[in-house]
């Protein structure tokens, strides 16, 4: 009855009975089919709006498709679009704009201000901290068109602009007459920063609040100042959220252009605040002399897609992917 006790029992993996595999194959196919049934709507949507467009975008970038030759069969032009892209007169400017915009906004707002806001709102009484974070969430909840409308009004020249009315009054004339047309970058970065900061703020806050209270008490007992507690304890403990926000937001800033489109459309003038993603969009949809250059827009976009995919890989790594996957604990019979 009792099997003999064998020390190597654990080492030897139990092997299935011969013949049992064939019968289970049908079962496994059926259980996989059930899972795919649940995933059906998702698969259909992802195929239609991510996979197919992704492939299409790549193909488009090798054609010369535009609204002028829309009815014709697609004409493949090899790498002509890419050549045109990299030799474009405004290519260096757009590249510079993109890098400047992404990193300035990221460092000043999406990471910097976000971190400061999280640190400060967690250092005051809970209700007050909650209130300030909530107010900071407002821009994110506001429709982009309305949000930009407010900023346009803030940034208008005298006598309508709010900035130009308030600043001379309270800070003296020195800050006067800063307006959208005059300093477009300031407002592009401010509008995006005020949206971007709140995401990091929320994430950092929850990370900070999850630091065990005992740890902070211990540091205070040891006589550490607020600054030292932040530097020596809090910051090292939220290293992962910081990295996560840095990648996630870099990608966001790189690829989103909705607020710039609404605020300046890349202007004023030629390509003043035009970033890469906006160029792709404008080439394809905002017609130049009545011609939408879909293929050329796709070429700008596919370069960005490639960069974005590389970021996404880093992001997946940062997510500690393995820990997120728990083995299902029900086998399908």
């Amino acid at each position: 009855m009792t099997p003999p006790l064998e020390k190597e029992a654990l080492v030897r993996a139990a092997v299935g009975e011969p013949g049992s595999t064939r019968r289970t194959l049908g079962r496994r196919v059926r259980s996989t089919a059930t899972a795919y049934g649940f995933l059906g709507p998702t698969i259909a949507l992802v195929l239609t709006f991510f996979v197919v467009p992704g492939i299409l975008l790549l193909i488009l970038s090798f054609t010369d498709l535009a609204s002028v030759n829309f009815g014709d069969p697609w004409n493949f032009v090899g790498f002509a679009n890419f050549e045109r892209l990299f030799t474009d007169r405004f290519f260096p400017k757009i590249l510079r704009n993109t890098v400047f915009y992404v990193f300035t906004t990221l460092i000043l707002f999406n990471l910097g201000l976000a971190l400061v806001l999280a640190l400060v709102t967690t250092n005051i009484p809970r209700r007050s901290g909650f209130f300030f974070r909530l107010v900071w969430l407002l821009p994110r909840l506001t429709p982009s068109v309305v949000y930009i409308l407010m900023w346009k009004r803030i940034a208008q020249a005298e006598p309508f602009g709010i900035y130009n009315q308030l600043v001379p009054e309270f800070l003296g004339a020195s800050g006067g007459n800063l307006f959208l047309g005059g300093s477009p970058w300031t407002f592009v970065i401010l509008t995006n920063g005020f949206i971007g900061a709140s995401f990091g703020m929320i994430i950092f806050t929850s990370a900070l609040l999850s630091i065990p209270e005992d740890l902070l008490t211990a540091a205070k007992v040891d006589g550490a100042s607020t600054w030292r507690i932040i530097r020596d304890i809090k910051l090292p403990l939220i290293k992962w959220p910081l990295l996560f926000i840095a990648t996630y937001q870099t990608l966001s800033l790189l690829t989103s252009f909705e607020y710039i489109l609404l605020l300046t459309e890349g202007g004023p003038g030629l390509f003043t605040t035009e970033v890469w993603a906006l160029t792709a969009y404008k080439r394809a949809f905002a017609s130049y002399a009545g011609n939408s250059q879909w293929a050329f827009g796709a070429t700008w976009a596919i370069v960005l897609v490639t960069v974005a995919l590389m970021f996404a890989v880093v992001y997946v790594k940062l997510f500690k992917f393995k820990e997120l996957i728990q083995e299902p604990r029900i086998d399908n019979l």
Partner: protein
Amino acid sequence: MTTTEIAPPIRPVGPLPKTREKMGRRFAYGFLILSIVPILIGYSWLVIATFSFRTEGLLPRNAEGGIGGFTLRNWDFVTDAAIWNAMLNSLLIAVAMVIGVGVASAAGGYALSRFKFAGRKAFLTGTLVLHAFKAEMLLIAIFFVLRSLGDIPIIGGFIGFNTVGGVALVMIALELPLGIWLMKGFFDNLPWDMERAALIDGASRFRVWWQIMLPQVRPGLAALSLFTFIAGWNAYLVPFTFTVGSKVANMPVFLNQLISDTAPTNWNQVAAVGMFQMVPLIIFFIFTQELLLNIYAGGSKGT
């Protein structure tokens, strides 16, 4: 510094000396209040402008240039059929998104969380990649996909280019990775024993999902619905790109047309339309504050 006529009682080891702490507090509040000034100013202008003849900065002016000029004239648009059409379109997009994202995420998230199947790992990785990926870059190609969808007989007229259905479909797809990831997280937290019990009680996997598991994730589904509703209600870029003309325009597109079509822009009327558009958002904001803060952190679950 402080007077020390009375010997201070021996304090238990605690926070910093009172004065420095107070200064720190003041500094903190000062900084926070300063930081939200632009936000408050923006909204203040919106409210003031809505009810004013015109504004200079934050000051309402009447026709003669003096302070004042209170008027309801800016709200005349509520009798305009076009805005109700835009509102209906916005509502259709938002509701379609709540249903579409809700159903697809609740089903897909359950499968990813709870099923063993070939390709599960690839699916999970893919979801996460799409979650980080921004689909705005694919809009050019999606344009062609939508045109093709429009060629499908019968249903094509509802889901193709320049239809509310088409816009809703694209928006659903864009929000789906986040939705699936969120729902997977909620399902991950449910006890396995409950599901096992239901299987032993005789339920099929579909019935377990529908009757046993879904009721447990209702709070998560509610949060996701709120999030997608707001995303749909506020949607600008996708409707703007894939619709032509005012018949299929939603509220943000309508508003933007109002800003650019009328020259010079009637800022006060535009403000009123913007305000009008924010009514449901303000209601959500007042009643679901905690939930809002939580769901906007939701995308980062697991870090």
